[in-house]
């Protein structure tokens, strides 16, 4: 029971069987987290373990993630399963920009976290968080399906803590996508052309981090 819910008024005894009082955020999050739609987006080795977690033995469908959508417009969870290469970076950012809000990213495996065994390679981005904001990291090379499950549970917990008034999607003003990098002599990242960002580069967060805030309260 969240702190908000404990402040709700007590119902009279005759209504307790038929009426349940809750907070809008909680209902919203409860329904949302049970119907994540992951994108059918396999990059490399981890994609095979991702597919394996949909197979009869593991069956991710138990947690409300049955259908993988090939179109980013119908998906709200991107499981970055594998090495992100520089050549793939423009497409990855474009896919992220096209996904439905509120959207989440799971970085699955060592390559997606930091470049992994291929970090030193000339064509590999050292971690997908250099391009898009990441919500959950799953270590492993590749992680077992159980590891991916744990990431999904962590994501559920995270979604539980979100509030409608904080979510970027429900704020005023237009939501700016991340500028799509181009392929030049090397990967041309337009974020690096901005002096403020270039000095201490961090990927822009499109939805506010609420976890830390809650812990303080």
């Amino acid at each position, binding site marked *: 029971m969240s702190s908000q819910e404990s402040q709700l008024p007590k119902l009279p005894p005759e209504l307790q069987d038929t009426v349940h009082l809750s907070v809008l955020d909680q209902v919203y999050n409860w329904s949302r987290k049970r119907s994540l739609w992951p994108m059918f987006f396999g990059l490399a*080795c981890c994609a095979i373990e991702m597919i394996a977690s949909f197979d*009869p033995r593991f069956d991710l469908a138990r947690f409300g993630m049955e259908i993988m959508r090939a179109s980013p417009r119908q998906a709200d969870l991107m499981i970055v399963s594998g090495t992100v290469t520089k*050549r*793939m970076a423009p497409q990855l950012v474009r896919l992220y920009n096209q996904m439905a809000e509120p959207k989440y990213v799971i970085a699955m495996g060592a390559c997606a976290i930091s470049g992994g065994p291929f970090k030193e390679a000339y*064509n590999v981005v050292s971690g997908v968080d250099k391009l898009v904001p990441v919500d959950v990291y799953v270590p492993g*090379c590749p992680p077992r399906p159980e590891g991916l499950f744990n990431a999904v549970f962590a994501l559920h917990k995270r979604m539980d803590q979100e509030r409608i008034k904080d979510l970027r999607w429900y704020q005023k003003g237009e939501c700016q996508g991340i500028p799509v990098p181009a*392929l*030049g002599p090397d990967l*041309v*990242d337009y974020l690096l052309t901005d002096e403020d960002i270039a000095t201490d580069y961090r990927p822009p967060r499109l939805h506010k981090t609420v976890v830390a805030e809650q812990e303080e309260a």
Partner: protein
Amino acid sequence: MADERQLSELTADALGALEEQFPGVAQPAERIGLVIEPHQLVDVATFLRDELDFAYLSCVTALDYPEATDNFPARYEAAYNLYRSEGGPLVLHVHADRDDPVIPSLIEIWPSAGVQEREAWDLMGIRFDGHPDLRRILLWEGFEGHPLRKDWHEPYYEEDQKPFRSRFPDGEPVLDEEDTTFGRNLRYPHDWVEDGVLEIPEGWESEAESAVYKPLELVAAAVKEELGTEQVVLNIGPQHPSTHGVLRMVACLDGETVLGLEPVLGYLHRSHEKIGERNLWLGNMPFTDRLDYITSMYNNFGYAVAVEKLMDVDVPERAEYIRVIMGELTRLMNHLVSVGFLCNDLGIYFTAMLYALEEREFVIDLFEMASGSRMMCNYFRFGGVAHDLPDAFMPMARELVFERFPRRIDELETYLLDNEVFQGRTKRIGVLPPEAAVAYGCTGPLLRGSGVPYDVRRAEPYSVYDEFDWDVVVGNNGDVFDRVLVRFGEMRESLRILRQALDRLPEGPIQGGRVRPNTRVPEGEAYGRVEHPKGELGFYLVSDGGTNPFRYHIRTASFVNLGVLGELCRGNKIADVVAILGSIDITLGEVDR
């Protein structure tokens, strides 16, 4: 002159024949094979193909010698590995100038050189004169430099050899990010950076996208004059459920008919070869796992076979049997998964694949039992395998191989092959004539589906494959359906080998030498190849006697087989493209490396 004893019989014969026909053109190479003068390369190649029957060009690669070697000056070099139906290889070396490396293209003689020469141009910067479409293939047009040259260093470059001194023995590693300009794996030309901020020159435009469509413009232009209809260019991938990963295809369509199709690669190019030349010899073993990530055991097998050619180490019999057991389990699993994925592409959405994945889990259980990892097994060592089989392995393997798998394969076959819709979608689609299959260097079920009974396990037996009783499965028509049939047949043959291997598995040691992390491999050059489930997997290795390879090239079946995709798809409907691609059976980790 190199020592005559180094020349194998095959090479000596070829040298004799060439000396008669083209005096002075060929001479023995430094380690193995022949050096051919570039100006007569095309004539020599034609002669070798037509007169000496070297119909199959397996591997084309490039080498960089920044310093003069014993017999030859500093140079770039192209190496060709040729095969006939048995025996081999004949290795041809062609030297090129360091300042302006140009070598005549062999695409007219062996079309399989097409994609491989593009790769050599991309990564080593050797121009192949006469190649009609010499664009970059793994990197994009406009990328600065040719990465496999020894003097080209990546942004995170630290040292030429692992282990890096900063980590061992000093043990004070520095984050790669701390040493680079932007804290990222990026480096731009000098005039692009000002005070740590990226300044893109005015009017700069990326050529990467426009270059992709160039060959299709020619296709469209050629057809336009005849028919006067409008063509559409369609992009499929890199994010598409039917491309088996991050493959991208651009197709030029007339209505629904494919006029031309061009695979666009490189979306998973992880520079295995550049990293591999820095790694210790044994350190490359886990990287081979990640080449074709569905069949990691067989990649280990290929690398172990290739390095053992150089090392001259004896593998004990028990280890060989364990290798074959693991290899054939891998083949079984790969073919199941590939048939499952093909059904996925055909619209039997997920059902057939779940059947396949269910069986795959059992094979993976066995792998995990033996190696400790589900997918990335890293199980083979030079001269043996890493661990002996645990006690629980044999009962479970016997149960699966003798009882479960034969039943499940029959079941899947009944469901699929008798199905009218499945037959309608696969029969007479993507027909590959046997001559074209050989010319394009196709291997594996793609080649055997066209009726060519070529299997490396038979043509050049490695390990203990010659001790088993098994048949090479071939198809008749060379269409998608026949490739599926061949896969089912090969699954049964794998089970046959497995039954014999499990029954006869001898006791004994599992390691013939000593496993050391910093193994030194004697100086030499070897091309070791195995019959990977997808086709021929070859490792072209050059050692200078040190602890890491001088050259580490991987010839993968998926990459070379993709060279024929455009040819197969031309004239078919766009919906059949995914069926044809599924029947070639590629893994992108292996295509892009």
